[in-house]
């Protein structure tokens, strides 16, 4: 087992009593309070808030436009530009999933599929959104670029069974991804 020892920083007495950092933190809070009181808080326009403008009236107003590119929401399955279902049911995501949210039933690719060389495709692919912890390991481990985390974060269900998303739902949510995975074309 190889490991790299971490070099810990040396703290001075001033660092150790941390009062300075405490004051710095309070100053930031106070700065935002003052800005809000004079109506100049950051992202006021985006929040479209009422009153002093520091709060977002959530369900009506969404944070969506502020989500960064790397935001990790619900995982989905995607198709390539050629319409091919990218997943080959290698089950690596099922293996890596720390919450055991994914359940795959592997199967052979359908006889109508254009890419017969792929041979294997999921017969069923289920993600239990009550178990999912949005860690993104499935996306990272996927050798086929088939599973991506979307920006969807609002998942409400009235029944535990509703929280289990099947293959059809996952492909509908994932849509088509730009780019081609050429691994399974006839020349490779």
């Amino acid at each position, binding site marked *: 087992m190889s490991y790299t020892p971490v070099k810990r920083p040396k703290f001075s007495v001033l660092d150790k009593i941390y009062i300075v950092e405490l004051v710095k933190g309070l100053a930031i809070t106070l700065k935002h309070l003052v800005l809000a009181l004079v109506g100049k808080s950051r992202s006021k326009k985006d929040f479209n808030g009422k009153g002093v403008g520091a709060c977002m009236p959530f369900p009506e107003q969404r944070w969506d436009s502020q989500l960064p590119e790397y935001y990790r929401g619900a995982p989905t399955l995607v198709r390539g530009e050629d319409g091919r279902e990218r997943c080959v*049911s*290698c*089950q690596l995501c099922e*293996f890596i999933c720390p919450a055991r949210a994914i359940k795959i039933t*592997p199967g052979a690719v359908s006889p109508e599929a254009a890419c017969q060389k*792929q*041979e*294997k495709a999921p017969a069923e692919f289920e993600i239990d959104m009550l178990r999912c912890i949005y860690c993104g390991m499935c996306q990272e481990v996927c050798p086929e670029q088939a599973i991506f985390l979307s920006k969807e974060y609002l998942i409400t269900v009235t029944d535990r069974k509703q929280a289990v998303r099947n293959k059809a739902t996952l492909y509908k949510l994932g849509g088509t991804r730009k780019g081609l995975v050429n691994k399974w074309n006839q020349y490779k």
Partner: protein
Amino acid sequence: MSNNPTILPKDAAAAEGKVNVQINGKWYRFPKGTRIADACNSVGVHVPCFCYHPKLSVAGSCRMCLVEQGMPPRLAPGATPTYGEDGYQPIQWMPRAVIACANTVAENMGIRTDSKLTSEARRGVLEFLLTNHPLDCPICDQAGECKLQEYTTDYGSGTHRFTESKTKKGKNLSIGPRVNLDQERCVLCRRCVRFMKEIVGEEVLGVVGRGTHNAIACYPGTSLDSNYSMNVVDICPVGAMTSKDFRFKMRVWFLKSTPTIDVNCGTGTNINIWTREQQVYRITPRQNDEVNSCWMPDSHRLNYKYINAPERILTPMVKTDHGAPQRPSTWDATLNMVVEQLHSCAPTETAIICSARMTNEELYMVRALARQLGVTKIDIVPRKGENDGLLVSDDRNPNTNGAKLILGKNGSGLPAIRRGIKNNSIRFLIALGEDVTEEAGLEAEDLEALDYILAMSHSENATTKVADVVLPSVTFAEKYGTMINVAGRIQRLNKAIEPQGESRPDWDILRQLTEMLGCDCPRVIACPSPMIILEEMAQEFEPLKGLTWGSIGNGGIVIMDTGVTIPLIEREKGKK
């Protein structure tokens, strides 16, 4: 090595018929004629091999087992050998690596598996093998137990310098009823060719094409349809040969393997059951050089579907009235009812048909039940088939010897029970683990005529459908126990999955029933597990004397001389 300086290590080894070999700087002794690969593996130095299989002839074609080798310097005429302080001659290392599978050890030989030369040789071989390999691991069933995958991560370079397009060969070809071939994944080790020729004796596989177009194929007009065809899937180091049955069922890294034995014939082939979450996915042979070598027949390998089938009986079933339909019940209520019913059965008019598919422990409990009831008409159902001259025994019951030992030979065998049922002198039948309408030779009308049928079975069959009470028992994958094979070897069954539904292990049902019927013998009713029953039996039966669950081990022990041998094992021993 001797501390006496006057005896050189070479002489000391020669006295034992052995030779001294230095492996990675350490000296070991091996018998003369040991292959370098076997010698290294036996001392924990791993030598990667594709084509070498200990049970097959040596091909030496894959070159994966290249190791650096050295010998003492060849002496000039008249010169005497020089010995170091440790008594060994200096080793002169050869400039080229040798293959470890086709070369044998020699006195004062040196082998290096951790040197630069060896690792470069391995990397080079892997690079050549991967030039045309499709790298379709995500869809390959072998992924996770693939030698090419393992060796590439262990010894490969990790990059690919080959930019030309890969050779195209046949993919997903059906070469037999149970085996698929992918010629692109093949590393041409020819293990499958040698297996079919040397072990099965059917030459159906060969290599066709030249150069980079070399590929495994069936000879024209033949197909890989032998009853041993699926062993090529096991010995294929890569994903070229894959099982149609296991195709795309589950990745192997999810599966848990349990060492146990096969129950389809008297050979008692050693197997591994591969399961995940109470589901059996496949069965593979487990090496036991005294029982099945490394192989097993396809017919036995594929006979596992009933374990997770919908025909399984998951709850006790009872008929409240004679002629009424069966309905599910609870264990307590059912057993109480059975006890009441059995008390009212006259022992002379009752027969027990039990099974040689039961373990010794279960048969011990059957005997206890019979004694408690006072029933003397008790027998197993014999199953005879054809011996295939390899591994399939003519006795299709896995535990005939155990049944003979425990139930003993009593006067009224199965024919007498059959006659009794036909002429109505037997009115009550207890069928344990057997469908009496099959090999036992009874008709459905005979069962209709009976007053009472108590059946214990894991799956629905013609007997359970008409039985008054059905007790759900378990299959061989769900219980512990021991069986004695045709050659008199006692072997262990291990539990791979939990009993399905509310079913219970057979021995436990019988034990509780015997206790409820009023048995107070602590040697029967106080047994909490098959291991303890085995210890009880060890005190009573001479051949089992001194046996414990642990002492049987995974390989089993010969406990009786039956005079029966397993043809494949005899042939293998004859070759040596």
